[in-house]
């Protein structure tokens, strides 16, 4: 597959909500925070998300409303063995790494 980008694609099309394996970038615009949260959560998946803004209170408004297992604020694709990794919804079950990664290996009574 060639490198592509889809500009102003619709969320109902598979481009934006599906898992594209290949060099594909989908871009959508937004006007309000509510709109962007709705667009970001309008998918059966929820592995990770990223937010860029210079306003601290806005960052945490966004990060608490995005339904994803990992949320990067003003950064992206950071990983660490002490940081739990794993998805919401159809992106997976359980966590790897950190304290929460250990819960699958212990039986606490």
């Amino acid at each position, binding site marked *: 597959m060639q490198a592509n980008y889809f500009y102003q694609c619709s969320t109902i099309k598979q481009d934006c909500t599906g898992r594209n394996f290949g060099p594909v970038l989908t871009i959508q615009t937004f006007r309000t925070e509510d709109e962007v949260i709705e667009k970001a959560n309008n998918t*059966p998946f929820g592995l990770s998300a990223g937010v860029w803004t210079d306003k601290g209170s806005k*960052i945490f408004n966004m*990060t608490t409303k995005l*339904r*994803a*297992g*990992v*949320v*990067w*604020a*003003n*950064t992206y694709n*950071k990983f*660490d063995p*002490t*940081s*739990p*990794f*794993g998805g*919401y*919804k*159809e*992106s*997976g*079950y359980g*966590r790897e790494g*950190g*304290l*929460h990664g250990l819960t699958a290996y212990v039986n*606490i009574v």
Partner: protein
Amino acid sequence: MEKVIAKKIAAKFSENGSHNVSEKRLEVLKTYKIYVGGQFPRTESGRYYIATNGKGDKLANMCLCSRKDFRDAVGTARSAFGGWSARAAFNRGQILYRIAEMLEGRKAQFIDELIKQDSTAVQAEAEVNLAIDRLIYYSGWCDKFQQVFSSVNPVASSHFNFSATEPTGVVAAIAPQNSSLIGLVSVIAPIIAGGNSCVILASSSKPLCAVTFGEVLNSSDLPGGVVNILTGKVGELIPFFADHMDVNAAVYCESDAANKQLIKEKSALNVKRVVIYDEVKWMTDKAQSPYFIMDFQEIKTTWHPIENIGGAKAGY
């Protein structure tokens, strides 16, 4: 003959302690319906089954819910999820406490229904008391489990990194079949304490308390749609509980191997969280812990960069 009837009526009047009631008065029996979206509709299918006690005596006609009833209930639960999960954790605790208060006020009715469904008076009272106490227990945990199960993670890079709990979403549960009240309450309480909404199928053989518990929920500030209670047959509805694509977690409480397998296989369609409580003894203390809440929580990890200005160090 007339004299005998007159005597019987007299006896009835003295039992009631009232002599003003017309002898023609019929007792008003309760119509057991389902609880969906804060209302008490009948099943859309118009079907019913007869609930009986151990001896086979008829207790009531119950709604025999269909696939469509389940789908409607999931839609309602999904709409209610956003508002319920966004409530302050403390407020959810207050509402769970209120549910316990309402249950306490209707204790006699629940004891009466449990006795109809083959409990002894002593067992019935113990079960209702424990159900109230269990609601109080989870009420307390509503705003505390988050601190216990969240963490700040010591990542090697210059980031502030923390993991916090968030509710999974809509939970479809099949209540324990061998109890009427305590199993149902023990499954519902940790689900809603954590901010989820749920659709629950009551015990098929002992369904009376589930519907009455719906009335308790309805009078306790719990927003409509957070808990939806259906009655019907497990065998008919279990495939739909497991394969609905807008359900995030499925709960099963029996040890039937075929049903467990079916739930696991169909749940894989949309990666539902499958929770099986086949070894829990609901009347014991082991049936309550914050881990029951955690069965319906996701962990969200947030990364935020930390700027190192001019190599400044902590000035101890």
